[in-house]
């Protein structure tokens, strides 16, 4: 499926999705509430069949926190990027997609560990790299650690 029809198709599924210009990928910002449903459709509808989540990253854009999903279909070879934004920095929470793409389980734990984005319904949401009693989320822009960080 080429990008133009794919765009129509996505907008048909989630009308409130916001299209973003990018040279490389077709990119949408999706409201958090619609994400899980959309993911399910993306994976299971035969003409879309996005079965390979090749990257899941959390980003701190200062104004809001963002989770970026890079998707590819191994049958149709088309790619898609979805973004979910949350402005709440204290209790950032997004629905998990690890029941759809199993690889998300580890990537979501990483995003939780380093950026403090909680994933609802995640089966095992613990810190993955840092100790359980670590304070703060190091990849956030406002993270300060006087003890451990030597600034250059």
């Amino acid at each position, binding site marked *: 499926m080429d990008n133009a029809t794919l765009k129509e198709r996505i907008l048909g599924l989630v009308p409130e999705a916001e299209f973003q210009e990018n040279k490389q990928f077709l990119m949408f910002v999706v409201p958090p509430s619609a994400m899980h449903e959309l993911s399910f459709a993306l994976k299971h509808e035969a003409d879309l069949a996005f079965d390979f989540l090749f990257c899941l990253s959390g980003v701190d854009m200062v104004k809001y926190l963002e989770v970026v999903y890079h998707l590819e279909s191994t049958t149709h070879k088309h790619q898609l990027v979805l973004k979910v934004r949350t402005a709440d920095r204290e209790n950032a929470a997004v629905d998990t997609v690890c029941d759809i793409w199993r690889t998300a389980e580890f990537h979501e734990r990483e995003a939780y560990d380093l950026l403090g984005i909680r994933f609802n319904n995640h089966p095992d949401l613990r810190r993955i*790299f*840092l*100790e359980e009693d670590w304070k703060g989320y*190091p990849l956030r822009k406002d993270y300060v*650690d006087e003890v*451990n*960080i*030597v600034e250059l």
Partner: protein
Amino acid sequence: MKEGDFRDNETLELFKKSGGNILLTTIDAMIDWGRSNSIWPLTFATSCCGIEMMATGASRHDFARFGIEVYRASPRQADVIVVAGTIVNKMAPVLKRLYDQMSDPKYVIAMGACAVSGGPFFYNTYHVVRGVDHVIPVDVYVPGCPPRPEALLYGVMQLQRKIKLETMGDPRKTEELTR
């Protein structure tokens, strides 16, 4: 390598000149000979330097020549822990515990920039121990990122040199003198 080449300073040997009881020094010499020629390392590597440590043990460099052949996986049976790679905050207690589990006499070689000082991960990072000597006492530092196998061999020879100065009466004497 000829003996003179790795003995490029005489400081260590000067300490030995103070003399001692003939019986004790003979026994010392025997034990030190045994210890220095049979240094069994612990199978322990955290990152890149571990690969160079493996290369040191492999066919071309072969540090079995020096009696460092038997890699022991159990810390109880190892003599030297070669800290090959970065130590992070989460790993530091584990490393300390490994060191405690080893039986005396035990030695530590800090291999690579990360183990010596934090190396490339010194600045701007939140989870790195800047030098393994914050956690356990180090006998020999081998710089490099990663050090070549020859460098590790040189480090091991220096450790052998250091062990040869131990005395039974005061096993930690060398450590104080060289500090």
